[in-house]
């Protein structure tokens, strides 16, 4: 495009400035979030220091605040979600690209994408009133029967808790991971796949030995994307996790995550220290997602350069 001439119209100067300012708002907001979260958690930061991250005590009555159970819950629920969602996404993407006839693939693909459009609070309602009773009646007793010797599957099957939260998050991040994986699978040049088919390979052999190795970096990017979404998921988790500041080995037990603690307690927190501790929880979550996002962005950018495609 042509560079603007030095004798620019005054209106054009102004227009350019207005658009640049609007764009700069994005930077200003990210900066503002950093500054405000630090400023408003200063009290808790100075009072607890690094102990905040390692202490399990969360007792507003005694003015003791430790983030360990929230951080643990965030990591465990995210891990459960990824363990369920990543393999499922791989095989669904495989179905969409290699197995299904094009018309069916289109319909199923759009159905899976619709899962991403459903608001978080709807997942919460469904999870609490529909899924949790089914889990407590059928799934959790079966798991306890089969793997009850492991501490992971012990305790009363209440239907709400870490496992339920993980399952719901898995369902919510599934469409995002699947979409990227589908694109990655489609990116593999047909010539490469066809030469493998030509040698007599089956669909699975082509997928395992050609498609997946070819797109492995893209698949990793998809997992990053899912991870970033899972870690900050709030409303659906708040509905089903049980909201207890307690670390338990059992996946059936209620727990909490950073975002669910915020959603539950923030408006009730009247004392400055309580509020400050909750803002510090927010700061931890922001730091986690911020670093993840930057890593994912850099990863995808490098990938784009290497493969000269857009993801």
């Amino acid at each position, binding site marked *: 495009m042509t560079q603007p001439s030095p004798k620019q119209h005054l209106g054009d100067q102004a227009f350019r400035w207005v658009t640049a300012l609007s764009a700069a*708002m994005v930077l200003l907001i990210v900066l503002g979030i950093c500054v405000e979260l630090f400023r408003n958690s200063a009290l808790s930061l100075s009072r607890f220091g690094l102990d905040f991250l390692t202490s399990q005590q969360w007792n507003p009555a005694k003015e003791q605040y430790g983030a360990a159970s929230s951080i643990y819950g965030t990591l465990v629920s995210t891990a459960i979600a990824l363990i369920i969602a990543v393999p499922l996404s791989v095989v669904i993407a495989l179905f969409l690209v290699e197995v299904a006839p094009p018309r069916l693939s289109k319909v199923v693909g759009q159905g899976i994408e619709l899962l991403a459009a459903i608001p978080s609070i709807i997942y919460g309602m469904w999870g609490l009133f529909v899924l949790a009773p089914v889990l407590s009646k059928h799934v959790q007793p079966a798991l306890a029967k089969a793997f009850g010797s492991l501490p992971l599957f012990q305790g009363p099957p209440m239907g709400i808790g870490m496992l339920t939260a993980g399952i719901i998050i898995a*369902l919510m991040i599934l469409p995002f991971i699947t979409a990227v994986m589908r694109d990655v699978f489609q990116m593999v040049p047909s010539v490469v796949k066809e030469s493998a088919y030509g040698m007599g390979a089956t669909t699975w052999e082509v997928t395992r030995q050609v498609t997946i190795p070819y797109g492995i970096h893209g698949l990793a990017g998809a997992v990053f994307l899912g991870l970033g979404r899972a870690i900050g998921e709030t409303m659906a988790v708040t509905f089903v996790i049980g909201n207890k500041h307690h670390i338990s080995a059992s996946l059936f037990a209620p727990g909490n995550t950073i975002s669910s603690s915020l959603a539950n307690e923030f408006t009730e927190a009247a004392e400055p220290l309580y509020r400050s501790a909750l803002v510090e929880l927010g700061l931890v979550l922001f730091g986690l997602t911020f670093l993840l996002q930057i890593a994912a962005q850099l990863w995808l950018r490098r990938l784009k350069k290497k493969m000269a495609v857009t993801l």
Partner: protein
Amino acid sequence: MKRRSAQQRRVVNGAVTGVSTGAAVLGIAALAWILYAVIRRGAAAINWTFFTELPTPPGMAGGGLSNALMGTLYITGVAAALGIPMGLLAGVYLSEFGQHSKLGSAVRFMSNVLMGVPSIIIGLFVYTIIVLPSGHFSGWAGGVSLAIIMLPVVARTSEDMLRLVPDSLRESALALGAPRWRTTLGVVFRAAKAGLITGIVLAVARVSGETAPLLFTALNSPYKVESLNEPTANLTVTIFNYAMSPYEDWQTLAWGASLVIMATVLLLTILSRLALREKKTWS
């Protein structure tokens, strides 16, 4: 490599095909289950009073959520009024002025990062910059937090849409002596109209179902919306509060509100996707 008989390989392949088909069925079944549950329970709660009456205390029959419906409309309206123009202008900068500038690439990068920041953090941020200084929760603050969520989404999609417009069109307008701003707003915008509208509708659909950013900003209220300068009733926080309450009639209302929100968001999403697809095949 290990040798395997043709039959063994066929069996493995068949198993994988079966598993992948099963997984796809599972995904679609989950979608159907959610839609079915919300429609069945929500439909039972929806009647005329649902849309016209104010909520009643638990146990009293005949309450509705007219205040929350209006509040959600107002808050989303404020978000759209702030987020759309700013997002469009940011998109113009990214596509027309800042393709290769440092500011452009920084904004592009940070927009993606901002889109990944959990929405509850945005709510916390707006709490610290608006609710704390003003001393009270307000619908305005709710609107601002939704606008912040919209901004990077609208900016990035409008950048993509504006870039699809061929440069020859810009050059023709400039050659006729039109200033840059008229070229952009009168010619480039018109050419990209369908795509821009689609992006905007998708962004509005997305924020209208948000709950977490409203928890610490708009809060909620059982009263009619008189002003946005006070805690403002809205559908999503109402769902949260009512669902967590022990009262069955409140839970029923929460299902009704869930159906309204879900139907609206899905309808907007599907319509704008259809429009985008038509545009793509047509150009």
